[in-house]
């Protein structure tokens, strides 16, 4: 029973991950990443942390990937033209590297943890109270710094993405048409 559920989540995650990296339409890639993240959230639940699963769906798929879709629609990103990259050296080289690295990691993890007996899940260790205690007592400083980081990110993103004000603005950057001499 658990095996079926795991196989379902893992299979869906793998297939949609492959679609993410191979499909040429960026919107389809983003939606496949949504599917991968939801499958991973299911795996989080199986590993005993429903909070992280809910947070992953809420933050990652519900906010970050929506932002991706906005930018894709705003910039009207077209389908990628890959007539030159398929079967090129980079493609094959990257494929071999990824396979070798995957093989090394899989061998490493399998040999190290194949027969690790995991203790049964202690409901107290991963409950709401313990998560709250960790966040606000043990890891209070990183928590506050994350708040600061998000503030910095908001300010930075809104400054970087704003339109240049006018031609006389000293901070404005001139637009260079493709191929024109500077």
């Amino acid at each position, binding site marked *: 029973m658990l095996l079926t559920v795991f196989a379902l989540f893992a299979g869906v995650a793998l297939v949609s991950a492959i679609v993410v990296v191979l499909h040429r339409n960026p919107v389809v890639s983003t939606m496949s990443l949504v599917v991968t993240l939801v499958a991973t959230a299911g795996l989080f639940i199986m590993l005993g942390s429903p909070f992280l699963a809910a947070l*992953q769906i809420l933050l990652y798929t519900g906010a*970050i990937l929506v932002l991706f879709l906005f930018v894709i629609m705003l*910039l009207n990103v077209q389908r990628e033209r890959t007539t030159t990259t398929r079967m090129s050296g980079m493609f094959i080289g990257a494929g071999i590297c*990824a396979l070798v690295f995957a093989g090394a990691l899989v061998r490493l993890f399998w040999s190290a943890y194949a027969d690790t007996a*995991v203790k049964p899940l202690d409901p107290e*260790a991963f409950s709401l109270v313990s998560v709250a205690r960790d966040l606000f007592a043990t890891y209070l400083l990183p928590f506050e710094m994350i708040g600061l980081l998000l503030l910095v990110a*908001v300010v930075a993103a809104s400054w970087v993405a704003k339109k240049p004000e006018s031609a006389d603005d000293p901070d404005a950057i001139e637009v260079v048409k493709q191929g024109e001499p500077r």
Partner: protein
Amino acid sequence: MIPIAWYLVLASVLFCIGAFGALTRRSGIAIFLSIELMLNAANLTLVAYSRIHGDSAGQMFVFFALAVAAAEAAVGLGLFISIYRLRHTIDVNRLNRLRW
């Protein structure tokens, strides 16, 4: 209970798929998506380890990693918008001059 090694194996395969995508794609958005895939694989590894040791520190790490990924996505996409405004392309093969 599923043997914990399977979660780690799955995470490493996802990571390598993401790495392959980050190396191969031409569109900046697609590279960014592959990076998010790698981050997700790392999060899965962390949660698996947290389960092995029964220690919630792994889950806290994932919590902070999610927040950092959100911040990074915001700034990164702002950068994409700015780059597109200047060079009218997201193709990383064309963005090969280290000036505006």
